[in-house]
């Protein structure tokens, strides 16, 4: 399962790197796709070693890779997400609670919350739905939450420098979060137990 998750997440980031970079060029600094692809390339290269680890350790290793290899705010944020999950997993709580801890780590690292036109606008509602046991709704919620960042005015991150002009573009971080959520669900729904 860990190997499949890495493969699938890598494939979706690599397949959308240009789209993400284009979105980021519109309202950020144009490196989101390139940065994430670099981090996920390293994850893919270390896939076998990570997949051998127990779940909490695998999360921790993957988080460390993203924190150190992505080279932008997105690496610190996605890396912190996995490191937050890892800490919760170590304590033996369920996956929904692990995700909740991951989202809390992103909030803390980014000093932000929902409504600022960031990845949190996707991560928070998805995490909440998961906690409520609405697994079947997650894709739709992620899609809608990502779309909802379009009309928002950015108040956090590089897009906030654009103020009103950030309105009308979906947030690149919310977009990559949506893509990664779909990728993870693809693997889980296939029931791949590798």
């Amino acid at each position, binding site marked *: 399962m860990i190997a499949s998750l890495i493969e699938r997440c890598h494939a979706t980031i690599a397949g959308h790197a240009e789209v993400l970079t284009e979105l980021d060029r519109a309202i950020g600094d144009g490196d989101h796709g390139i*940065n994430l692809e670099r981090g996920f390339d390293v994850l893919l290269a270390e896939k076998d070693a990570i997949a051998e680890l127990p779940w909490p350790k695998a999360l921790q290793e993957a988080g460390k890779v993203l924190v150190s290899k992505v080279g932008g705010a997105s690496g*610190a944020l996605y890396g912190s997400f996995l490191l937050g999950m890892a800490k919760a997993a170590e304590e033996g709580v369920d996956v929904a609670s692990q995700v909740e801890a991951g989202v809390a780590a992103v909030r803390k690292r980014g000093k932000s919350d929902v409504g600022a036109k960031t990845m949190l606008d996707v991560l928070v509602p998805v995490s909440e739905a998961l906690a409520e046991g609405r697994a079947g709704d997650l894709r739709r919620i992620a899609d809608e939450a990502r779309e909802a960042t379009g009309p928002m005015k950015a108040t956090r991150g590089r897009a906030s420098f654009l103020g009103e002009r950030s309105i009308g573009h979906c947030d690149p971080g919310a977009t990559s979060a949506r893509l990664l959520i779909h990728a993870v669900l693809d693997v889980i729904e296939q029931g791949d137990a590798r």
Partner: protein
Amino acid sequence: MSVGVVLVSHSPLIAEGLAQMVRQMAGDIALAFTGGDAGGGLGSDTEKIKTAIEEVWNEDGVAVFVDLGGAEMNTDVAIELLGAERAAKVRIAAAPIVEGAVIGATVAFTGGTLEEVIAEAEAYG
């Protein structure tokens, strides 16, 4: 020893140029700078930032000056990687990088404490 100063920019050129300005004002304080991602492009890199902080770390503490969001977040991570004991003596100034660093370094040069360096940089930066 005096408070160490670290400059973290998305751009290697800005980090280097600012270090030059700081040196002119604040002579031989413990100063380190880093700019760009691991490959030397625009960005910020946790490992490079951690190394820069370690270079100037001392008991009086370290003041870090950053430019944009990613540099700040990656500096937060780098500080955590130092371990709790050393991390407790490292602060990020909420000030514009150029003005903040020049003022903060001057305060460090004249023997100011870490709290004074940060406070002056944030007040006048």
